[in-house]
């Protein structure tokens, strides 16, 4: 799954790429508007699943690139330091799927990307972690080809962790995201479900406990992944 990162600041570009790669995406960094316009014409870049676009770019700016991106049918998330309402409305009206204001949190970026991909029907169908295959279409989990029985919340928890793999979630975040705000505070629930996942999938060293924070599903093989 290829994501275009159109951002002129090399540090930020590298930051985004680093995290997207860790979460299992393939990235292509482009540093100015004109280069982006050119890149969209070639097959490989033109078939990307999503584009993260900085609004203030040298050459063609982010808003001007919208036309080219729409022609290539690539959903756009704007990434910008401008947080005024007018820019946001302008960006969203022009057809952007989302609008993220700098500075942003890595997890927020990943979740938003995931949401946009899902909404535009480009969500990943399968996530492979070692010998475990999560089939997001069939809502099933296979380990070594054999089906593993997971309760619905265990499955949701696994998917959440796997979709942003290598990124840590705090217990509160997981609770809020999966059980809803009513459960906030009962972090024991998360621990119990994590325990179940570890046992059922033999993920004792894959789902790591991050002290004073939460959990992270680790999978260092991401470079080889598609």
């Amino acid at each position, binding site marked *: 799954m290829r994501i275009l990162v159109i951002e002129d600041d090399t540090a*930020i570009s590298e930051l985004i790429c680093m995290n997207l790669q860790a979460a299992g995406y393939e990235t292509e960094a482009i540093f100015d508007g004109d280069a982006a316009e050119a890149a969209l014409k070639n097959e490989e870049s033109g078939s990307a699943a999503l584009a993260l676009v900085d609004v203030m770019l040298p050459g063609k700016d982010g808003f001007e690139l919208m036309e080219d991106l729409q022609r290539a049918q690539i959903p756009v998330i704007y990434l910008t330091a401008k947080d005024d309402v007018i820019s946001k409305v302008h960006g969203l009206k022009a057809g952007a799927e989302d609008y993220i204001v700098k500075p942003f949190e890595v997890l927020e970026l990943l979740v938003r990307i995931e949401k946009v991909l899902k909404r535009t029907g480009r969500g990943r169908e399968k996530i492979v972690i070692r010998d475990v295959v999560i089939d997001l279409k069939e809502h099933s989990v296979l380990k070594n080809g054999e089906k593993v029985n997971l309760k619905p919340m265990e499955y949701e928890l696994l998917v959440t962790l796997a979709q942003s793999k290598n990124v840590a979630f705090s217990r509160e975040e997981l609770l809020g995201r999966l059980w809803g705000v009513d459960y906030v505070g009962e972090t024991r629930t998360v621990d119990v479900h994590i325990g179940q996942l570890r046992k059922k999938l033999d993920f004792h060293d894959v789902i790591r406990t991050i002290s004073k924070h939460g959990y992270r599903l680790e999978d260092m093989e991401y470079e080889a992944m598609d």
Partner: protein
Amino acid sequence: MKLWIKMSAITAAVLLVSTGISGAAVIYHSARYNKEKTIENYEQQLNVAAYAVSRELEYEPFQNFSEATANAYYHYVIEKYDASMYILIEGEQVLCNLTPYELNNPGDDRWGGVEAYHMIQKLDNRYILVMGIRMPVAGSDEYKLVLVRDISKIYKDIRAQAFFYVRIYLAAVLMAVVLVFLMIKKALAPLRELQRAAQDISEGRLERRAKVHTSDEIGDMAAAFNGMAAQIENQVTELSLESERRRQMLGSLTHEMKTPMTSIMGYADSLLHVNLKKDQKESALQHIYTECGRLVRISSKLMSLIGMYDNDSICMEEVYVDDLFSAVAEMEENNLKKKNMTLSYSCHMDKKIMDKDLMISLLTNIVDNAVKASKTGSDIIMEAKEDRITVRDFGCGIPEDEIPRVTEAFYMVDKARSRKAGGCGLGLALCGKIAELHGAELEITSKEGEGTEVSVIWGNV
């Protein structure tokens, strides 16, 4: 009270009182004159009559007459001289009275003076003049002649005259008041316009001017007022421009700070929560370090820029321009060495009044820019002559349409390349500010691909 009412009222009051008093005085005097003249007339008549009657009385030996004869004689004499006017008296006895009046006090000595004595008596509504004199009859001073006359007509005339005067007086005053009122109203009309203009201006329509073109004091005042309004408009425009510039600068500043902050936060976040590989961790730390450096550079440049807006500790002194150049060359030595460049300078200027530190900062900033723009091994020339110091490079130049903007804070022609070279877009803004403090200005001429020339010109300020 409105000024025009006040002025009209005062004028009317002054007119009323002054013309009233003078009119009354005139009437009073003319009345008195009339009366005196009339009395004088009668006095003459009385004198003549008294003399004539005396002669008649002397002429006849009427002591010998019987009382009836004497009476008849008196009647005869008095009738001869207008009987209706005189009363003849001897001692206390009225000898003959053919007037319609009765004299109450015929014995009164006042009637017997050598000079005529008179009094005016009011009877019913009539004024009666009574005037008596001793008759110069030889051998007797008991004879008196009294004149009685109705002089009401004089009073009636006076009254008619006064009444007539009052009418004219009122008409004249009314006319005068109306005239004064109209004149004041006309004279004050420009003040209303002035007031409206002032009101408009206070409501924010600063371009409003008073349309008063009279050549009087109000015209002068309107001209002064318009001058003031123009000045205020200028200053307000200047102020709003200045605040707009500052707002833009602050906007650029936050944006400019956001980029390194996004990196720092993002990398720190990644290091904390993301399972990174060893080389990625190192790269993240490196980025955090570099971006912090960028923040430090921005803040220190900004500090000097802000400092210069408020700082009055600028120290102006005479500086040898030659010394200035060698100081700049020394500071840039390392920078130049890295790109194997040379900085040559020629100085045809002796001394100049300046703040040495600020001027060094200005020149090093420009030389820094020149170094960044130049290729390895090229030259930079610094020159001072007449009223200017010029730094010339043979680098990439500035696109023509960007030249006016390069002195704006945070403006960068090529952001990506500029940041890589460690720029933050404040250098030339700083230089412009320093030049301004020295009463000089920055002139930039450049040709893309051929080089740039930046001059500090001590101008016509």
